[in-house]
């Protein structure tokens, strides 16, 4: 960790301590760091937060994977073929303009209140993000590389599988990274408003309506850490897999 990072962290916590010790903000809304830390450890010791984390991760990864599996091929096809592009462009543009939260009732009606509705919504938003990135990755592939392959006698299929696809890979992976953050947001929101027994979103929501504020803060921190670690993990894989990105 860099010195600056550590210093800013210390400063942040110090301001927090100052605010709470002088009661500058109602302690009901902003408990002291100590209370939050205690609540944080209680989540793991007696709060059984692991089950919630696992459930959230399960929904998220299932939805994310499903969205990617659907989004990548459609994006490739749209980037590749003008016909496919013009057939689907309007729908893609329209549905990505619809806030995903506005679709909750629709998904509830179709899939009920269980897990299916939750990971379907995650899949939906993942799919759109990945699809668009994939499509632009294909569309922005370098003409020169295609020309090179053509002079060497590559047919259209070979140009696509051996050149254009690889050019799209950095874009696809960047789309997946954006979608991963979005997936966590969406899954937490579904857990707050679509009713469930387990899940981080449900824990935050329940803590807030029952005024267990330190617990609420600590679950928020858990969700933040989760997103942070997922992103770090993804970047680690990305730099290994897409070693040529930006070069």
């Amino acid at each position, binding site marked *: 960790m860099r010195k600056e990072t550590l210093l800013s962290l210390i400063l942040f916590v110090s301001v927090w301590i100052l605010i709470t010790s002088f009661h500058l903000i109602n302690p009901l809304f902003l408990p002291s760091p100590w209370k939050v830390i205690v609540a944080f450890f209680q989540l793991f010791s007696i709060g059984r937060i692991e089950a919630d984390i696992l459930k959230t991760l399960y929904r998220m990864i299932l939805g994310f994977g499903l969205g990617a599996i659907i989004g990548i091929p459609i994006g490739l096809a749209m980037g590749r073929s003008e016909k496919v592009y013009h057939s689907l462009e309007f729908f893609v543009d329209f549905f990505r303009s619809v806030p995903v939260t506005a679709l909750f009732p629709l998904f509830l009606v179709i899939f009920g209140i269980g897990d299916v509705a939750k990971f379907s919504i995650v899949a939906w938003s993942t799919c759109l993000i990945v699809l668009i990135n994939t499509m632009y990755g294909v569309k922005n592939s*370098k003409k*020169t*590389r295609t*020309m*090179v*392959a*053509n*002079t*060497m*006698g*590559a047919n259209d299929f*070979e140009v696509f599988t*051996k*050149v254009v696809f*690889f050019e799209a*890979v950095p874009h696809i992976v960047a789309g997946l990274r954006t979608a991963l953050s979005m997936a966590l947001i969406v899954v937490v929101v579904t857990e707050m408003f679509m009713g469930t027994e387990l899940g981080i979103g449900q824990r935050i929501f329940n803590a807030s309506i029952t005024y267990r504020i330190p617990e609420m803060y600590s679950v928020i921190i858990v969700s933040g850490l989760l997103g942070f670690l997922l992103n770090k993990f993804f970047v680690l894989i990305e730099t290994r897999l897409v*070693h*040529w990105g930006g*070069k």
Partner: protein
Amino acid sequence: MAHIILKNLFKSYGDTTNAKAERLEVLYDINLNIEKGEFVTFFGPNACGKTTLLYIIAGFIPFDKGEVKLDGKPPDKTRKGFIFQNYSDSLFPWSRNIDNICFPLELNGIPKRQRYEIASKFVDKLGLKLPLNVFPYQLSGGQQQLLAIARALIYDPEVLLMDEPFGSLDYQIRLSMQMVLLDIWRKTEKTILFVSHEIDEAIFLADRMVIFSDKPSTILEILEINLPRPRNHEIIESQEFFALKTKALRIFKRAITK
């Protein structure tokens, strides 16, 4: 019959669906015969259509009128190597250098072990010192362009088309690349068409130097470069070189003040 024949070649750009739209005349009545194994350089004002001509010979773009034949065949039916100025946009950064060189062999369905063997022998034959197990972006600019040249030549094309291949390299590297290219040319005996914006380069490399006018581009003059081979850069200081350069410059001035 000549190896490459360009006859009454015309090319314009514009909206083909709209007959009334004004078209931009790029090439105007180009006639040129090139013999097998010749080194021909194209020289002319910026954006005059030299690259367009090279693209037509490569079969990348169609032409309006005239005839283009490589060994009696239309351009899209022959094997060509094409070298772009921008080597980093033409190499495949996801593949190791060896796989870049082997790409044409891979397209021909040659198994991996065999193509690696062919490639390393070929690189040795050309006398190139290229690390084959790293990625293109780990090489210097000059090395990357050599990699592209090796890739273009490995499947034995009939002609090597080079569009300002050394244009983005610094001067010192450029000179050494010219020497390496002449050496490769001597070893492979390929026909080379080379677009250059640099007059010394265009004379130094060539058997014949084709000087183009500004758009619509015509061939103003074809200079025979009768300098002895093998050449090195000392020749640039010779009387003969100087005389050729003066002559080329006079024609070139005519091209831009027309």
